[in-house]
């Protein structure tokens, strides 16, 4: 009853949603939304390099985003400029550089729009492999480092005193984000990746009592948003990436006040 491309889109979207739900919690807790956004902007340069030199766009994104992250950490240690200033500079410099590089590519056909907003309906089997292998690796590393990451998020020095190598763990988290940015570009595009990271996690916040349940809930909400988005996109012939983010936002808008009301009712019930 479904065409192959729809099935591939669903498999891809569900895979991405499962990973970004978990990673998104750390983005919310550690206030990395602007970092995620900047990373995604810089990935355009990676796309340009990938197309220019003929290797995979995903590899290009991972290389450029990793350089971006290392550069950011190095500049942060200089303590001269605030992090948001540094992010602003790095993000827009690499975005512009990416656009400039792409302008040299007039001999290659590519759809800039699909990189900016994603195009889940043109997913290939190679994309699926990237999502499931990359996503599997990201999830595994997140779970293995879960308690260190969570403790470090609660209190950095406390984690250090208890033997967490915080610098290494922080770099790991940044690297995991570059991988996720690389394979999510195909789904929601450069401009919308951050929303996929933070909206399900933010919605899950009200539903959860522990960090772990927040991560699981965020993943489930992400999957729901992807499915709603894809079907909405087919039904109303709307662009897929923005439809997914619209669905996620609707879930947030509906659930957030309802849950807020429920928790305040519970509070008054107790006292």
């Amino acid at each position, binding site marked *: 009853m479904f065409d192959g491309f729809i099935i591939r889109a669903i498999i891809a979207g569900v895979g991405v949603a499962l990973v970004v739900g978990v990673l998104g919690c750390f983005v919310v*807790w550690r206030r990395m939304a602007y970092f995620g956004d900047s990373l995604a902007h810089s990935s355009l340069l990676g796309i340009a390099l990938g197309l220019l030199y003929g290797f995979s766009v995903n590899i290009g994104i991972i290389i450029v985003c990793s350089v971006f992250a290392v550069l950011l950490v190095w500049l942060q240690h200089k303590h001269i400029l605030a992090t948001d200033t540094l992010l602003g500079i790095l993000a827009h410099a690499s975005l512009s550089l990416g656009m400039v590089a792409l302008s040299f590519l007039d001999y290659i056909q590519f759809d800039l729009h699909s990189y900016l907003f994603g195009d889940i309906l043109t997913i290939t089997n190679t994309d699926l492999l990237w999502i499931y292998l990359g996503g599997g690796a990201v999830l595994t590393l997140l779970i293995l480092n879960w308690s260190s990451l*969570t403790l470090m998020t609660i209190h950095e020095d406390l984690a250090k005193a*208890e033997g967490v190598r915080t610098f290494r763990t922080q770099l790991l988290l940044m690297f995991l984000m570059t991988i996720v940015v690389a394979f999510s570009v195909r789904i929601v595009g450069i401009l919308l990746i951050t929303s996929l990271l933070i909206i399900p996690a933010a919605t899950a916040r009200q539903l959860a009592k522990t960090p772990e349940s927040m991560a699981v809930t965020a993943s489930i909400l992400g999957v729901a948003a992807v499915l709603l988005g894809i079907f909405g996109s087919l039904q109303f012939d709307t662009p897929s990436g923005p439809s997914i983010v619209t669905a996620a936002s609707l879930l947030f808008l509906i659930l957030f006040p309802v849950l807020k009301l429920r928790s305040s009712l519970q509070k008054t019930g107790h006292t």
Partner: protein
Amino acid sequence: MNNLIQVDNISVIRDRKQILSNVSLEVGVNDFITIIGPNGAGKSMLLKCLMGFYQPDSGAVACSPNLKIGYLPQRLVADLTMPITVKRFLQLRKTTNPNELTNVIDETQIASLLSLPLYVLSGGELQRVLLARALLDQPQLLILDEPAQNLDVSGQLAFYKLIEKIHLERKLAVLMVSHDLHLVMSSTKKVVCLYHHVCCSGEPQVVTQDPEFISLFGNDMARLMSVYHHTHDHAHEDHHV
């Protein structure tokens, strides 16, 4: 080595400023050391060097093998964005047996807080939870960085009493940065007065009469300390100006 930690002549220079200069310190088994000093005197840096967060530019820090340190940060700002209960927080990254957990919970009187989210706790409750977490590893040494700074006076008193009780019962060493010398006077065995270098150190009543202590904290502080040390059993009429 009989000491838990031996600090030999460490110096730290950061941004061309001398933060610590030739600081030496010994933390022995069952010691109770209070480090005092004005803001920016390098107290936190000294703790960072002790715990190995920061390598001093010169000098050496040696720890006894298998030394377990329990660390209590100045404060924990529990963030609303992360839902986490006290119980889950205590068990995060810890493999404790249930008996040990129950003991520590009793010791720090946090049984009634276990199911609450971290961010609803008061300052004093949070410090007790942090203390519980530090004790779970059964440390030989407890390092506390101004642990009562954000508590009100009665909270400070109660917290220091608890620290003293744990120090005596568990026979563990305590190293504490604190401004509340008058409150920890009775339990402190050794005061280290730090202002980039060790100005003076020794038993509390000796230190408070040291000219370096008086020049750093002023006569009033020295007088206050000596009053405290007489444990209020007689009045000091002559001290009224």
